[in-house]
Structures are given as structure tokens and as C-alpha cells.
């Protein structure tokens, strides 16, 4: 049974966590994620879930407690944003290398400094290379759906990795949105019970986890992590199909919006994809063949699939809501441009840094990007590879 409800992104994620009913949640509040754990802790207090809620003293401890619980055999979760994720940094790598299927929503917020509480993706991009799977959500519906699928993806025997479910701070987390939620039983049946391959509380089969690696082993264990990431792509698609059967909404590695015959395309994550799709529709009415590619999975990066999806496009703009300070563009730009290089067909790929620290992305901004692309397509000339959108300059 499906029910249409009005919830904020945070409420939708808390609702998903309630229906998943994890064994352990260890979390610390931080804007704009606070509501998730606040609402979830009320579910715990009211006996609506069986979860052991650990109110820890920091995000470093939150992930550490989740690691301990997950290694012991529990289905464990945490949640955070921005500085909290930064403080968690060290242990996120450990969760990934120990191959623990911890699911954690991250409500994307700019990293200090200057101190700021609003949306950008610098927090998640900081953990880009940590070995966790990163899912991105355009709206509350996707955040809810991603949370439920994340559990299955993380725990799949071929994967066994943490999954970070991202959504935009305030824009998605605090805005009321209409979405469809599943009933508790459907979610319960979909996520099932965690069947750990190895767990510390298995007295019959003692195991030692998180061991010290010298140079003889570290490299091989890193290679195993890469293999798990590779396998995750198929698993994510399979679980997306299975989820479609219970929800009517199918998820793949990315959404290709009007890309089939597109001349110009924008690649963008999270909520800004909604804005971009709206602008693409308007431009199509004016005869411009505009399309949008919205990665749902950023780690692992769906390279072959994105190359295939963009091969017919003449000019592509990658929009990054994070700065790398490499002076040659944002994090997603590097990956997308690298991906398209092998086509050897002279697709022009440019980059726009936008929305840092919660700067609004307006329809006119995206329209300007598409018009720039049209100009590049017509003239074959790129004046500036990396530009800033909505910056006073």
C-alpha cells in the first residue's frame, strides 16, 4: 500500500529509518541534519522501533559506534552534515575498509570556513575517495527511496560497503514536499534482516576484524574494495529494479532526462537537477535540444554508462556545487571530462561552479549555462573552461 504524504526531506528520511528499524543508530545533532535524529529518537522513545539509540559525544564517536555495532553483526546507521562529516572523516575510511554495511544520510552543507550552515556539496565531496558508496537525491521522495535501497545495496554479499545517502541541506531537508511512502510491512519485507557474513558476536566462528596490514597486504585489500565498488554498480541496478516492483519507481545509476536527441546537456547532482530539467523543458519549447544527466550514484562512478548516455551530445556543462581549489574545476567535472575523453569525438566539456554556501541557483542561471553551450556548439569555441555561476564578478 502506498500513501501520499507531505513531508520535509528530513522527515522522509526519518520515516524511512523508522520503517527499516535498524538495530543501532548512533548519532550527534548538526544543522541541517538535526531533525533526522531528533525525530528518530522520538520513535525510539515511543517504542515505535526496536533500535538501540546511542547519543554519542561527537560524529567521530557516532561512526565509531556504528562500526562497532556493525562489526558485531547489527544493522547500524548514523546521520550527519558538513563539519560532522568532516569530524567523522577518519572513521568513514575505516568503515569502508572493514567492509561494514553502514547506511548514513548526509544532509549536504558547506564546510567551514567561513562558517556557513547552508547547502553545498563540499562535505560529501570531501569523502569522495573514502570508499563509501554515494547516492544523491533530488528531492524528499528520492531521499526516502534511496535510504530503503541503500540498506540492501550495502549488505549485498558482493558489496559489503557503507552507503552515504545525500540530499541538499534546507532545500530538500527542510522544504515540505509531496511524496509517496510505502507501508511498514512492505519496507520490512524489502529490507529483510541483516545476515552478516562475519560478525564478532558469532561465538562459534571467532573472527578478528580491523587488523593491522603491512605492505604485503594493504594494497591487496584496497584492490578488494575497488572490486566491491565495481560489483556495486550491477547490484544497485538490480535492487533498483526490485524496488520498482514495490514502489512503481525505478532507479538506475543516473537519470537521463531528454538526452536521446540532445545537442547540449547539463550534468548536475541533487536538487539542482530539478531546476535544470525545468529549464530544459522551457528551452525545448523554444527549439533548443537540451537535456540533463543527473547522477544518482557518484561513487562508484558510472563511467561507461555516462559515456554511452552523452556520446551524441555536442557540448556538456558539468555543474559542481563544490570547489576543489585545483584551479581546474570541480570534482564531478574531472570525472565527467575524463569519461568523455575516450570518445575522441571532440565533445566540448565545460564546468560551472555554483551554489556554494547555499547561494541560490535560479532558472536564469541554468538558462545561461544552456545558452553558453548552444554558443559553444555553434562556434566550436570554448572561451573559458571553468566558470562561476551566480557569483558577483
Amino acid at each position, binding site marked *: 500500500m502506498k500513501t501520499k504524504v507531505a513531508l520535509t526531506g528530513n522527515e522522509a528520511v526519518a520515516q524511512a529509518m523508522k520503517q527499516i528499524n535498524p538495530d543501532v543508530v548512533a548519532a550527534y545533532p548538526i544543522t541541517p541534519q538535526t531533525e533526522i535524529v531528533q525525530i528518530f529518537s522520538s520513535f525510539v522513545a515511543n517504542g515505535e522501533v526496536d533500535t538501540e539509540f546511542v547519543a554519542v559525544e561527537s560524529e567521530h564517536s557516532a561512526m565509531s559506534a556504528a562500526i562497532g555495532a556493525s562489526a558485531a553483526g547489527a544493522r547500524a546507521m548514523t546521520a550527519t552534515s558538513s563539519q560532522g562529516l568532516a569530524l567523522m572523516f577518519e572513521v568513514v575510511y575505516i568503515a569502508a*575498509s*572493514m*567492509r561494514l554495511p553502514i547506511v548514513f544520510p548526509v544532509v549536504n552543507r558547506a564546510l567551514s570556513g567561513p562558517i556557513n550552515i547552508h547547502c553545498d556539496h563540499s562535505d560529501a565531496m570531501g569523502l569522495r575517495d573514502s570508499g563509501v558508496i554515494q547516492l544523491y537525491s533530488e528531492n524528499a521522495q528520492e531521499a526516502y527511496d534511496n535510504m530503503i535501497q541503500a540498506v540492501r545495496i550495502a549488505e549485498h*554479499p*558482493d*558489496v*559489503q560497503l557503507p552507503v552515504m545517502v545525500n540530499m541538499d541541506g534546507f532545500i530538500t531537508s527542510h522544504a515540505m514536499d509531496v511524496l509517496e511512502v510505502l507501508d511498514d510491512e512492505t519496507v520490512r519485507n524489502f529490507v529483510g534482516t541483516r545476515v552478516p*557474513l*562475519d560478525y564478532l558476536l558469532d561465538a562459534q*566462528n*571467532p*573472527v*578478528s*576484524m580491523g*587488523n593491522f*596490514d603491512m605492505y*604485503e*597486504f594493504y*594494497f*591487496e*585489500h584496497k*584492490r*578488494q574494495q575497488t*572490486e*566491491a565498488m565495481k*560489483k556495486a554498480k550491477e547490484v544497485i541496478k538490480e535492487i533498483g529494479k526490485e524496488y520498482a516492483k514495490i514502489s512503481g519507481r525505478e532507479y538506475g545509476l543516473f537519470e537521463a532526462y531528454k538526452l536521446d536527441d540532445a545537442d547540449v546537456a547539463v550534468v548536475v547532482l541533487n536538487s539542482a537537477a530539478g531546476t535544470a530539467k525545468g529549464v530544459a523543458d522551457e528551452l525545448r519549447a523554444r527549439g533548443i535540444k537540451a537535456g540533463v544527466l543527473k547522477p544518482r550514484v557518484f561513487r562508484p562512478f558510472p563511467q561507461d554508462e555516462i559515456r554511452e548516455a552523452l556520446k551524441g551530445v555536442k557540448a556538456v556543462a558539468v555543474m559542481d556545487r563544490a570547489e576543489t581549489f585545483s584551479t581546474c574545476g570541480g570534482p564531478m567535472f574531472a570525472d565527467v571530462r575524463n569519461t568523455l575523453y575516450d570518445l575522441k569525438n571532440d565533445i566540448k566539456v565545460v564546468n560551472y561552479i555554483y551554489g556554494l554556501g547555499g547561494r541560490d541557483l535560479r532558472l536564469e542561471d541554468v538558462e545561461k549555462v544552456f545558452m553558453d553551450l548552444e554558443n559553444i556548439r555553434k562556434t566550436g569555441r570554448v572561451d573559458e573552461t571553468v566558470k562561476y555561476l551566480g557569483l558577483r564578478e
Partner: protein
Amino acid sequence: MNFGSGTRTRVVKADMKWYELTKAGNIYEPGNANSYETGDWRSIRPVWIEDRCIHCLFCWRYCPDASVIAKDGKFEKFDYKHCKGCGICAKVCPRNAIDMISEDEIEKAKEANKDEN
């Protein structure tokens, strides 16, 4: 391939390929530190002086690496394959029956002997 499958491989060796090793380096066999030789970390070596030894076994008790081998309640030998040369045994010995000798000096002496032969 057992990678990620949780197969409880009992043997982990340094010449195994990445997909032959246990997932995440999990260890299913207790006491496998024995198969990892740490003796080549040593720069100074404990040498037993038999006539001073009263077999109190302080060295055996204090050794952080189980590298003092005792038999029938008596000191027998050092396990040089694992001894890292920390020198704790020499420090706690009440009879100064353990000397710490530089491995370099031992090497030099060996080389000198070779030349003579």
C-alpha cells in the same frame, strides 16, 4: 574466489593474490602472528650467558613477544625469528645474564670470519 564471500580461509600468506585473501583482512585463525616473522626488525640481539643464569624466568614473563622459550621450568633459548630486540629481558634480568649485542657487530664478525676462511 573468496573475496567478499566471507569464506573462512584459514591460511593467509604474503604471496596470495588479492582475490585469494580474506575479505578486509579478516582473520579466522587464532595465533597466526606466529607465521609472521618479525625478527628482521631487530637491531640489537639478546644473547644468553648460561653460567650467570639462575632460571628465574623473569625474561620469559616480561618478554612482550613470547620470544623467550622455556622448557621444564628453565630458560632454553631465544626465538630469533620473532624477537624484535626490545631489550626488556636484559633490563629485567637480576643476574645480567642477557647481553644485548649489536646486529651490525655480529654481521661484521661473520664477514671477518668469512674473509679468514
